[in-house]
């Protein structure tokens, strides 16, 4: 009996380049994300993590190269086909990006109202279930996002992103700006969402605790502006466990959170010397 062929990766990035004017942010990135994997993309501010993430979900078109989501090149789809594919994503923005003109309940119900014909009672039930899963009581349903704390907004954002049972869940800096306990609550929620259904996850973060806790695989990007022309922008691609054995000082410096000579470099480039 023949073994069934391995399923194709959910996301396949091929020689991706991203430039804004003369400023290159991503250079020749090639990555595949297999189904069911949780990939954390780490790197210092300005290395292109968020740009990579937004180009994966088709919010930004690549300057060169291709990004395939389940075999579809999102940059070549028309508006309607793009909508069909985007229903398969869940995206948690850094600021949660809740619609401030709507209540929490309307925010979480938004994808259901857009893409399903469920009765109001079923939508309401699904909203309450999703909010309960992220640890929010029924009483928040009628509140406006402005009335919530940062951690609560992030949790509403997770509930909204998960309500359509996405195949790919994307988190942009999920724990930035949160206290350590709330940050760990968000980490736990990311792990639980994966346990609940076989979702593929992509986490962009510079919080090493989050990366180590939730990821199966870590990819580290380095800013193009600090690279020599022949150097690769992906400076680490492996498991969280191997991260501490890496000899590349750029990786170990980031993992340990050491500034090294960076302040001196910054002062020099600012003309302070």
């Amino acid at each position, binding site marked *: 009996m023949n073994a069934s062929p391995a399923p194709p990766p959910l996301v396949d990035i091929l020689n991706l380049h991203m430039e804004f004017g003369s400023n290159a942010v991503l250079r020749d990135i090639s990555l595949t994300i297999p189904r069911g994997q949780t990939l954390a993309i780490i790197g210092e501010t300005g290395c292109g993590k968020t740009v990579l993430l937004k180009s994966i979900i088709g919010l930004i078109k690549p300057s060169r190269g291709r990004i395939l989501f389940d075999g579809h090149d999102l940059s070549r789809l028309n508006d309607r086909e793009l*909508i*069909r594919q985007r229903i398969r994503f869940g*995206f948690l923005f850094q*600021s949660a*990006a809740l*619609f401030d003109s709507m209540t929490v309940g309307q925010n979480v119900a938004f994808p259901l109202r857009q893409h399903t014909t469920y009765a109001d009672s079923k939508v309401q039930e699904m909203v309450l279930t999703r909010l309960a899963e992220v640890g929010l009581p029924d009483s928040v349903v009628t509140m406006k996002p402005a009335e919530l704390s940062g951690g609560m907004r992030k949790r509403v954002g997770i509930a909204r992103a998960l309500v359509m049972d996405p195949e790919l869940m994307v988190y942009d800096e999920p724990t930035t700006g949160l206290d350590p306990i709330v940050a760990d609550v968000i980490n736990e929620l990311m792990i639980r969402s994966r346990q609940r259904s076989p979702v593929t996850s992509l986490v962009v973060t510079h919080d090493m605790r989050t990366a180590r806790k939730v990821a199966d695989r870590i990819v580290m990007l380095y800013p193009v502006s600090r690279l020599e022309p022949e150097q690769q922008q992906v400076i680490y691609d492996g498991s969280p466990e191997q991260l501490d054995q890496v000899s590349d000082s750029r990786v170990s410096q980031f993992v340990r959170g050491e500034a090294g000579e960076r302040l001196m470099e910054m002062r020099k480039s600012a003309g302070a010397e």
Partner: protein
Amino acid sequence: MSIDLPFAGRRFSRPLASLYHWVADWGEVFIEALIAIGDLALFSWRAFIWLLTRWPRKETLLPNFYQVGVRSLPVVALTGTFIGMVLAVQSYFQFSQIGMETRLGAVINMSLVRELGPVLAATMLAGRVGSAIAAELGTMRVTEQIDALATLGANPVHYLVVPRLLACFIMIPTLTIMADYMGVVGGYFYGVIILGIDEYYYWYNSARFVGTWDLFYGVIKSLFFGAAIALISCHRGFRCGVGAEGVGRAATNAFVYSFVLILILDFMLGILMDNLYFAIWPEGVKLT
């Protein structure tokens, strides 16, 4: 003395260099304007395609109609009333000098329905509605709410632009009719009640000179003004720069660009519709 310029390594004398910079600066302005106009054209095209292919939901449509129509009613009514009264104040003296004050009804009402009602109502609405649209969508842009809409499988142009376009396209002409009506009332109030012009001849001359075509003329123009205000304001909001400064600039630009386009459209539609009128009725027959 010669100056290095980025032009195939050639060196230019000072007058030539300043000419070079002058051409380069204006060329840059021209190219940027061309890009912005092209971007607005593509944005408008996408909005019209969505408008023609999928009608927005009632929940997104009605709040916009309420915002643009109902909330603007007092300010538009006030604008219309004062235009009518000011026209009466400004023209009474000249007309009374030659004993033709009863013709004031024709002058006031003709100016109102053809020109001042539509243009000033649209200008007022560009300030009230256009700036509000640009600021709202601009805030949504900088807080990533527009990106969030896209990731939730809703097309931002369909969800945000089409309802606002429809609301402006339908409500701004409706408000223009309201401004015209209030202007007629304002002109009548000041001309007949305050200045004592003969009421019968005031209305007789109005009816004699102002025809159905004149009323349509103003309302048809306001359809274009409505669409222009909506598209420019939505476009400015969508292309908003970062931070509070970006939102402020988007709101200001929405008003300024809308106002400029209203004036340009007013001029071009004036020529076009006069030609159309004389093509259909060469003798100048009025649709009374």
